[in-house]
């Protein structure tokens, strides 16, 4: 089953009345990868997830998971997936263990030693009622519920909300192990740093449209660098602004900061020809900045 495309959408579109929540979404997620699905609140991430899970039906287009049609074969699909809904709600009067037992029964049983292992790793309390747990501790039950049947495809909508940093790190390790097994993780998030840390590829969605799909390393290399330059004398800002790939130039006497995309060599050659460079520091731009750039430019091609 792992040689199938994990998740595929073709022209997936969902309208709520006049509102276009999802527009012509084409996406292909390969087995064994961690795919980050990024976008601000209201961009259409949850609508996309609910559509491929057959909670809601597309206005146009289709989706498949593990090669099975998301609507026709939804029950079969759900044998092979784990799901953490955004804004997770569970049965408040059941304990964590009761909750997991319930879902395990609906699946025809799970490996309980694995459940205990997961609970241990996430430091989850299964004896308390879900309604009495803090939101982070409740989220842990939701995560165990999604991981416990060793699904082929894990679909998670903002899964790390409420988790403390230590647990988040463990959760990221768990995701990497799933991918190392050849299984697939679909992770929707607006937390860029998290996606950056675990994802292989990232899709960026905005106003229902897929703006870009890129490998994380790719995004980085073509991404913008923050460059700080120190000179032995005052410099002229216009010199920098005219260079290709440079933007956001700020000059304060001998000190210049700018954003740069392209080969560092071109920047350095021009700079050293004119001035004496005392010090330089460059910072790898994080997805945050790349993300913002995509937003500013709107429809950057993939």
């Amino acid at each position, binding site marked *: 089953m792992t040689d199938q495309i994990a998740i595929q959408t073709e022209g997936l579109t969902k309208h709520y009345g006049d509102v276009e929540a999802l527009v012509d979404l084409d996406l292909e997620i390969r087995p064994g990868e961690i795919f980050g699905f990024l976008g601000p609140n209201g961009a259409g991430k*949850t609508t996309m997830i*609910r559509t491929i*899970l*057959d*909670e*809601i*039906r597309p206005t146009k287009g289709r989706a498949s998971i593990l090669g099975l049609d998301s609507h026709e074969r939804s*029950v*079969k699909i*759900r*044998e092979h*997936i*784990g*799901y953490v*809904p955004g*804004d*997770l*709600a*569970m*049965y*408040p*009067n*059941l304990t964590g*263990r*009761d*909750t997991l*037992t*319930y*879902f395990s*029964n*609906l*699946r025809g049983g799970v490996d309980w030693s694995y459940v205990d292992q997961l609970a241990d790793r996430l430091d989850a309390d299964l004896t308390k*009622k879900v*309604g*009495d747990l803090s939101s982070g501790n409740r989220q842990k039950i*939701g995560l165990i*519920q*999604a991981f416990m049947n060793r699904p082929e495809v894990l679909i998670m909508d903002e899964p790390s909300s409420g988790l403390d940093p230590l647990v988040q790190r463990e959760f990221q390790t768990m995701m990497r192990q799933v991918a190392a097994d050849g299984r697939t993780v679909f992770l929707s998030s607006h937390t860029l740093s998290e996606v950056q840390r675990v994802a292989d590829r990232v899709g960026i969605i905005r106003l229902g449209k897929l703006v870009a799909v890129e490998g994380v390393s790719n995004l980085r290399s073509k991404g913008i660098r923050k460059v700080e330059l120190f000179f032995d004398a005052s410099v002229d800002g216009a010199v920098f602004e005219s260079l290709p790939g440079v933007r956001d130039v700020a000059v304060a006497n001998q000190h210049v900061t700018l954003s740069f995309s392209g080969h560092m060599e071109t920047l350095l050659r021009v700079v050293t020809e004119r001035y004496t460079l005392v010090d330089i520091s460059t910072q790898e731009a994080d997805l945050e900045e790349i993300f913002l750039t995509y937003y500013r430019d709107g429809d950057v091609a993939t």
Partner: protein
Amino acid sequence: MTLANVFTKTTRDRWKGMAIGSVTLAVLFLFGMSVYRDIDLSVYTDLPDVFRSMVNIPKDADVASLAYGAIYGSYGTMTLAGLALAMGAASIAGEERKGTIGLLLGNPKSRSTVLVSKTASMVFLTGLGALFLLGAGFVVPAMLDVSITGMHVGALIFHMFVISLFFGFLAVAIGAWTGSPGAASGATAGIMFISFIGAGLFPLVEGYENVAKAFPWYYFSGSQPVSNGVNWGHIGVLSAGVVLFAVVALIGINRRDLRGETVGATLVDRLRGNPITQKLANRLAGSARVSRIWVKTASEHQGLLLVTASVMFLFMGVMLGPMFTLIDDALAGMTDQFPEALVALFGGGDMGTPEGWYQIETFGMMAPIAVMVVTVAIGAGALAGEEERRTMGLLLANPIRRSTIVLHKVLAMTLYGVAVGVATFAGVAIGSLLGGLGMDMGNIAATSLLVTLVGVAFGALSLALGAAAGRVKVAIYGTVGIALILYVLNAFLPFNDTFAGYAKWSPFYYYLTSDPLVNGMNWGHGAILTGLTVGLVVSAVALFERRDLRQTG
């Protein structure tokens, strides 16, 4: 504007209940007074003292005092006080249960201020309800041309208002100390009910007349305010109670740790916590409870079933048998004197026979209501409830069909409907044996089966409405509204020759029209009710399969 402060927001959230309650009471009052105007009132003088005293009817009753006493004095006061205590119980404890108290107190308002605002809203709305009833108390007799000379309507309403505040503030105080809205409303309602019975019964027991004074209700009705005007001494006693409860509430709310959003602990939960009983309780509450969808659904409604089935068994079944033998002389021929329409509304039947007695008291109205309470609660919550609580997405992430979920819910609903039917059967059968009424067991079983079928059919209706709309309120109000209309149509259409045939469009027609308590099972009618249920379930599945799940409540 309505969100200007805690007072106006609370009033906005709560005014509908008060409006519905007081309008209903006014209509009931109109209905009651017009009935009393038309019947021979001697039936009431023949009633046992216990009954009369309980429903607040003086011995030498005339039309007006009967209507004021029976409608305002008992139902009316219970309703007004019930609304007040519901508001009181929800005041602070309700916000704690919902987990919103922290947000509210994150604003620069003291706990005392919030409590005072909320109780002020309770007093305000209770006052409005009382004023409305006062208006109806004058308008209705004028409309019906009934003399109210010598009646102190204002005094009665004033007493009603003060006793309502008494129970309202009691609920506020309990809620303020415990933080549990359930404890506050449950304990207060219990105290109210006991005090209602106590104040009604003790005056009849020689030598114990004064015990009645221990019950708050005595200070509402003991002085017969509608005949004798305001009794300031009694009002003083109740007002002292109000002040005491208010002070107790203010102290309680300020010295206690506030609760976060909480889940009520049930008895089984407590047993689970105790190492001695843990094993047994786990078997009851743990893995068994979550083994399947229908079992889990059933377990969520245990409490409701327990209460409903017990009431039907004990009060509507067992106890009515011996009671019939005690008062059958007074009842004989009583039905003849009631307008036919009124008797029909309670299911019809001749109160002079055991079958007629049980038909009017138990099967006519109470039994279908009891079955429906359970089936509609499960049916309406089945799909719409899981959607509103946002658990449906998680449930449907498992490899099960939507139709499977519907069928599991239907199974739980049907089993519970049957359980109420069986309890009713057992209660009436035992009541008949205890009273030596000699009713036919098969016929009791047939009637119980038919009431179960009619109740399950309306449960299926609420399920279908919930499947279509995804909203619990739509499912419940829709079902109750439709059921009420169909019930009334079935009761009244037969009086009109032209429209009599249309009664067959009401499911209730297939319940009692064949007189199963006398004639036994009508399988054709049973089949029609079953067919209706099946049809509604099939459409529920179709509606639910086709629809987008709702995302939020």
